[in-house]
Structures are given as C-alpha cells and as structure tokens.
C-alpha cells in the first residue's frame, strides 16, 4: 500500500492523523478515499494541493498513477511570480 503523508495544516482536518497507508492506483483514486474517510479534506483536495509521488511534484493531475509502494506527500499548491 502507498504511504501517504499530509504536509502542513491538512492533518488538522483528519483529527491530527498525518500519515496513512492507502491502496490507490491514481491521484483521483487517492483523493476519493481520503475524502470518504475525512470529508473535511474534500474541498482542499479539489482546490489547492500539490501531490508529490516518489519525489516528483504534480499539480492538477488526477490521473497520475500511484504504485503500490509509492511514497506520496500531499502539499500546499505551489505557484510563483
């Protein structure tokens, strides 16, 4: 199962739990499972997060694959100037 870690304030929406083991094959799949388990996370997942999968950061990419042994970090979205 993929190791999923919430970075920043997101853990406050999951009762303080920042780390999960989740079986998910894509970012979309991951978000669905997180939102079902913690509905307060849902609006944040829809807008305003980046997802790092095995070191590579992705933004707004729902179909990015997640492997069974992936390390996934959910981060604040990154912009720039």
């Amino acid at each position, binding site marked *: 199962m993929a190791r999923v870690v919430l970075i920043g304030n997101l853990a406050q929406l999951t009762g303080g739990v920042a780390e999960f083991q989740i079986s998910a094959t894509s970012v979309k799949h991951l978000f669905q499972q997180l939102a079902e388990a913690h509905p307060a996370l849902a609006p944040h997942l829809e807008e305003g997060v980046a997802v790092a999968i095995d070191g*590579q950061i992705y933004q707004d990419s729902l179909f990015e694959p997640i492997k069974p042994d992936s390390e996934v*970090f959910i*981060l*604040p979205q990154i*912009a*720039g*100037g």
Partner: protein
Amino acid sequence: MLVQRQQRLPVAVNQLASDSRGVLGVQNRDRRNRDGRELAVPLTWSEGGVTVTKTYTFRRGDYAIDVKYEVLPHVIDVVEAMQPGAPLLHDDLFTVGVEPKPEKASNIAKRIEIVLGDIEAGFAKADIIVEREFNTAPVHQGYIEPHATLASVSEDGSAEVWSSTQGHFIVRAHCARLLGMDIGKVRVTASEIGGGFGGKTVVYLEPLAVALSKKAKRPVKMVMSREDVFKSSGPTSGANIKVKMGATKDGKFVAGFAELKYQAGAFPGSPVQPGVMCAYAPYDIENVKVIGYDVVSNRPKVAAYRAPGAPISEFAVESVVDEIAKKLEIDPVELRLQNAAREGTKAAYGPKFGPIGLEETLNSIKKTEHWNTPLRKWQGRGVASGFWFNIGGETCVSLTVNEDGTVSLMAGTPDIGGLRASLAAVAADELGVEYEKVRPIIGDTGSLGFNFLTGGSRSAFSGSMAIVEAAKQIKADLTARACKLWEAKPDQVEFKDGAVRPLGALAEKVKPMTIADFAKTAGKTGGPIGGVGRINAQGAGPSFGTHLVDLEVDPETGRTTILRYTVAQDAGRALHPAYVEGQYQGGAVQGIGWALNEEYIYGDDGKLQNAGFLDYRMPVASDVPMIDTILVEVGNPKHPYGVRGVGETPIVPPLGAIANAMEAATGIRFTELPMSPPKVLKALRDKGLDKA
C-alpha cells in the same frame, strides 16, 4: 483617538443627480428651480447614533460635498499587528491552523508548520547553536511599465481587451466572472510587457475598463501613474524571521528551526507558505521545524514577487549558515557542500529530491577567479544558495506549416523573458528547419486553448513540452501522407532531419520530401499542415543557485558598492543561453536592490512616503557591475530536453550573499533589510568604525 476630518470633494452635479446612492446615502430627489441651474440634494448620515439629514444646494458648475471621516488607528508592522490589542482589521477573521479554534478575531489569518524529525533531539546533538532574529521591509516588484489596459466593448456585448499582463487568460477569466459575462465573449491580447515579476499576475484595471467601455460605448484606456502603482498595487511582504540552527563541531547541520511572520496586506494571503517550505530546502538536515504566520495589516494586499516568500526566509537562514561557518572556521562554500541537498535528500516539506544541481553550483563558484581574488579593507565577500520549486501547468501552443515551408508558432503565455526565441529554437530543432524560418508570436485568448499565466518559472519548461507535442503531430501527419504518396507501409518511412525519408528498397524508388515539399502540395494531400500541443505540463524540476558577491563599504557615508557578482545556477538545459543569463542577472540585480536600498517608508499617519522611483530607489545599470553567470546543466529527467525553470531562483540568494559580504566587510552582522546607507552608517558609528 477619534479624529474628525473634513474634506471638500468635488463631485459632478450630473453624476450626483443620477446616482441613487452615495457614500453617505444620497436621496435621489432632484429639486430644480425654474431655470434648471440649481440642484437640491438631501444627504443622510449617522452621527453619534443619530440619523442626520441635511439638504445641500448645488449650482451647476459649482459643487462640493463636505465629508467627515472617522480616522481609525492603523497597524503596519507585522509583529505589532500580531499583538493582542492591535487595531483589528477584520471582525470576522479567526486564525486558521490553531487548536482549539479561537473565539476572538485576530490579525493572524493563518498559522502553518512543517516538521521533519525531532527538533529538540537535533539541538541536543549540536555542539554549536546560532540563533538570530531578522526583519525585512516590504518591497515592490518595480516593473518599469505601470499597469495599463485598453478595453473596447461592442454593441453585441463582446469585449476586446489589451493588457500589460503576465496572464491574459487569467485576465479574461476575471473580467468574465466579475462582470457576469461569458468567457467566450471576452478576448484579451497580452501587450508586450514592461516587466511583471509576479506583480502582473492579478487584475486591477481590466474589469473596470471593460465596465466603463460598456457604459460609455467607447474604448476606454486606463493607465496607473507610478504613484498609483506604489500605493495601490501589491508589493511583497515585510517580515520578521527568527532562525535557530545547530551544528556539530565538524560542521554537520543537525537542527534547523525558523519562525516566519509575513505581512499579507489588508487581506490574507502572504507567501509565507512557500517561505516555510523553502527556508531549509538547500540542506540535508534530519531535524527541521518551520512555523509560519500569515498576518494582515494596513497595507495593500501583497502580490507575488519572483519566488514569493523564498528570498525572505533564505536571507535569514543563509545569514545564520554564514555565522556557523565563521564560528567553526570552516570555509562557507565547504560548509554548504558538506550539508547540501542532493538527489535522494528528503526535503523538509516531505518528498525526496530527484537529480538536482546545488552541489555543481557550489563547486563551480569555488573554481572561479572571482572566489580567489584578494580583497582590501572595507571590502567583503559573501556567498549564499537558494532554491525554487518551479511549476508546469496548462499550456497550449500551435505550429502551422505555411505554404512556403516556413513555420508559424503561436504560444499562449506572455513573453517576459525570451519565451518566443526559446520556443522557436525548439520548434526548429524538432522539425529540422532553420531557426530563421520559424516565426513565433503570442496569441490572444481567442486563438488558443487555455494557458496558465507566465509565472512560477514555467513558460519555457511547459511551452517547449507543448511544442514537442505539436511537432510530433506534424511529423506523424507528414509520415502518413508520405505513405499514401509512395504507397508504402509505415515501417518503410521515417521522419528525420526535417524530411520524411524512405527506408530500405524504397529509397531507390523515391526521394525524401522536406517539410517545404509537403507544404507546396498540402492541399492535395490532406489540407493544411499543423499541430497543437495541449498539455498540463508536469515534471517541473527545481532549480538551485549559488551567488558570490564582493562589495565595498564607504565608512564615511555608509554607502555600499557592489564590486563583483557571480551567479551559478542549474538550468537543466538552457534552451537559449543568452536569455537564461538574462534571468540570472535580472534576479541578482533585484536582489541587490532589495538588500541594499528598497523599502516602503510609512509616516506616522500610515501613509506611504516614497511612492515614486526617486525615493523608492531601485538599482539602475550604473549601480551594478556586470553580473557574471555560470550555466550549470543537470538535466531534468522529466523534460524531453532536460529543461528546468530558471526565472525565480536568481532572486533568492542575493539577500543572504550580500548580508554575508557586509559582515565580512564591516564585522557587523546586519539583521535588518535594507542595509541602506543611513542604517549602515549608524551601525558603523555605534561601533566607532566610521572614522577607521
């Protein structure tokens, strides 16, 4: 203290007559005398809880309204704004990110935190701990061209807008949303931009110009004055930063703590989040804790400024790293190399880095003649490193092969640093045509699919990926046409070096056809030849940089002169080296201004005192030496050419590098920016060094 003020405001009589509401509540009862030259207007307001109505009589051509203001106390400084009892900007703003949820409103909009390892255990292992507090002033992006726009709404309600912007698709979206229009009815052209640096990723004038044009039934142009720009548009945050780092006696960093407090302006949304994430990014440290506060205060809402948030936090961290180097008597570049983030290092914000070029930038600085040049008294040398994530995003480009074989390239992200030239080089390479045969333009919002704005160091990275996609379509199309023309199978042909070439036995029967050959007969073989790359570019690779600066301080005046400056930064692959160098130089110069001179100066009344380039002093060409550049190229494996964004990283190291050079030159650790002549002179005098 309540202060009553009166102000006489000229108001158009006609406007007043037609308005049904004014600031104080204008009752629209138009009582004219017989010749129509007088207008009696009742005004109502609340005074001490009592509703007062007074009728003012205006003669046409002679008009005034007396307005009484209640001037409220203000707070600007971020630390003052966080104090209990500070003037409250919003009654309904409660700090997010703290438990339990606060019941009292606050100027602290948000608290954020990232943690890696065990910070207390880390400090327990340290042989040396350095702790410092820093302050930075708000600075402006300083684009030479102010915000400007022209809007023209036609009778069918559709709008054309020309705007000095970093993102014309974003302008379109904002105008449509704010004015209740269909997106398809708004067409925006990005003008050639006179600088943006993040400050033109938002809208100020465009929706207003569209609304006014609709009302006036004429084109409307709006241009901010320089004073308007300084007083009304978003600068970056001023900040207070506390940094505490621990290291072993042989120089291994074992703990890094920071607390960042950033001004957001009147509404939440400072760049403290990226500041938190970037603070220790250049280093491999097992134990990190960074806390950030987003704080509102009485200033314009901040806007992005080149690597938003990162220069501030890394100024503080790089200053402390330099102190550690001095205390341990370790060369500052060697100390950074010892602790540098490399491929596989876990960043404090979570993921492990892929291939990165920080080590290469440090080593290349060490090899420069600059690094080994001796200095004199009152001269100092400083070094610092920095980082920016970079992003990709939605990007759409088109390539069209014209009838004569030339190629028209249309991109959709405004060109603020050489995008057109860089993409043309990629298109020429992909299609095997001469560079001069590719003509790049930036299309308006009606010509391409959605493009995210130019920012986040994304445009060359994303645009070139999209060009590769568009070129693939053209190559596939021409290969298919050749198969039909030659009655060949796909494995008998290939596209190579600008032509479709027959393979094997077929090569004895037919000659290769170039793109220009296909273009001549395009209509007969399938129609116009072109491709559109539509992607949401992913795989952006971070760019690390290291800056080296020599400066000289005049002890009699406090003035600092930059003597020499070298930038080494990882570009992955420089599509257009001269433009990449330009980005390095531009970021360095902006950092020089930020470190040595630029700041918003407020009076006791809370008003901005230096809303012009005379008193808000940015570096000009004569203030700085040539900025030498070293293009490090550690390819980004996720990009077909290895490209990394480069535009933002170069503004991150200068503040720390210059502060470190100042310490070397004067023996004084400056912890407040800017290190402007009056402050430097005072510091020298306080230590009795000004006569030396």
